[in-house]
């Protein structure tokens, strides 16, 4: 087991300087997500125009894995149609839970390193579950437990 599979440079970098780490003042949708086991909590904000995510941002606090995963997610989603967001969610979820081996293209592939660390998978999925909840009308905060 090599720690660097988990804490790859991209993850360390996105944790240190998370992208789109801000609030959107009048979002189309926003939702909170919690991981009660670790105390991670974040809010995902979305601006959606004609079925396309024109802006996405997040705020909150958590471990390096949850912050980096949220940051990478916002980078990957900006300007994408909702259907593409759903496809990416399915890919990342499949990658993290071991359901599929088809890594998502680009930087998101670094999240695959989390798979060897079962206790950390929920850290990586938190932002993604929160995103899906926000896109598809969850009216309560998302919880990983």
């Amino acid at each position, binding site marked *: 087991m090599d720690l660097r599979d988990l*804490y790859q440079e991209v993850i360390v970098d996105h*944790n240190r300087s998370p992208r789109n780490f801000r609030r959107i003042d009048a979002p189309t949708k926003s939702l909170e997500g919690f991981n009660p086991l670790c*105390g991670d909590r974040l809010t995902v904000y979305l601006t959606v125009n004609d079925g396309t995510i024109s802006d996405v941002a997040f705020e909150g606090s958590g471990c*390096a894995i949850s912050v980096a995963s949220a940051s990478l997610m916002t980078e990957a989603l900006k300007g994408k149609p909702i259907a593409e967001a759903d496809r990416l969610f399915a890919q990342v979820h499949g990658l993290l839970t071991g359901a599929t081996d088809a890594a998502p293209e680009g930087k998101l592939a670094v999240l695959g390193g989390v798979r060897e*660390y079962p206790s950390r998978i929920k850290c990586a999925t938190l932002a993604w579950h929160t995103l899906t909840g926000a896109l598809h009308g969850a009216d309560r905060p998302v919880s990983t437990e």
Partner: protein
Amino acid sequence: MSARPAPPALDAARVRADFPLLAQSVHGKPLVYLDNAATTQKPRQVLEALDAYYRTDNANVHRGVHQLSERATAAYEGARDRIAGFINAASRRELVFVRGTTEAINLVAQSFLRPRLQPGDEILVSQLEHHSNIVPWQLVAEQTGATVRTIPMNREGELVLDALDGLLHERTKLLAVGHVSNALGTVNPLDTIIAAARRHGVPVLVDGAQALPHMAVDVRALGCDFYAFSGHKMFGPTGIGCLWARESLLEAMPPWQGGGDMIRSVRFTGSEWAELPYKFEAGTPNIAGAIGLGATVDYLVDIGMDRIAAYEHELLAYATDALRGVPELTLVGTARTKAAVLSFTLGSIHPHDIGTIVDAEGVAIRTGHHCAMPVMEFLGIPATARASLAFYNTRADIDALVRALARVREVFH
């Protein structure tokens, strides 16, 4: 004065050899187990007692006339005697076997406190408590219209007792406090707290889960009314623990659960309860667990709790100095009187990342809120990393932790 010669200091290398689990590697590194506040490892002597019971004496207790049942009953009741002696209970009738601290506290909440609570009554708990010494009181408060109030803490992790007298009054029906904080290691000044409660006629429950593994406990000298603890936190099996309570209180309490073993006679016109402590032990108990805990107590008596306390006192001082030397490390919980528990944060690195990285170096610590969310909330942090020590830990273990923490800082530059 004829001074007895001081007993020889504890030889950690020797006691360590009693714990087979410790001699293994994880992730290719020698295991350094520093998560003793979550659960402790078990000495060979306890494992052998469990094994021997199942291999040679297994039978139900208090029921059979046959040889095996008599042997199992003698071993089970013998364990009760030794555990009662270990905490200096006045009699074996005061020692109820339960699943653990959590169950003991729930028993007191429902059987002792619930019938005494009226709307507007108060239960006083400290801010430092583990959730299992908070939630059972919230449940009984909800059931009766009572409220739960708190004894505050300060940033060092000590209870603030200046206002304690004001918090205790005729509507206070119970004070519940931990002996040692699992999150921060604080040893609470029970003498002061119990004396104040006594002045106001308020009964006191002490959560002793984290005290038994570190120090000699004498429930009668403490002067409390209830004392709860778990076998697995004191080098014994899981699924067994004890509630100690004054006999007069237990006598007056109704049974908590009904079933076999806790009755003298059953008729559809009404049943009669068994004598103490069986009134509170419905159903087939955890016989092996009790016997294992008896063996644990024998083991601890053999080493000597005072030697354990002295050894850990030194090790805590060493560990405190060593951690203070780690750049950006902040100790959380710096009470003047502490057991060997070190909670800390490391710069802006999240405790979960610390936990994962030190694990890769073979070092097992706990990260998170430690089932003490009110403590974390007061301190304004979501989580800490926690190294909790036992008498089988050594300075080498602390050095390994310090090296692993250097690795954490390397990963995050």
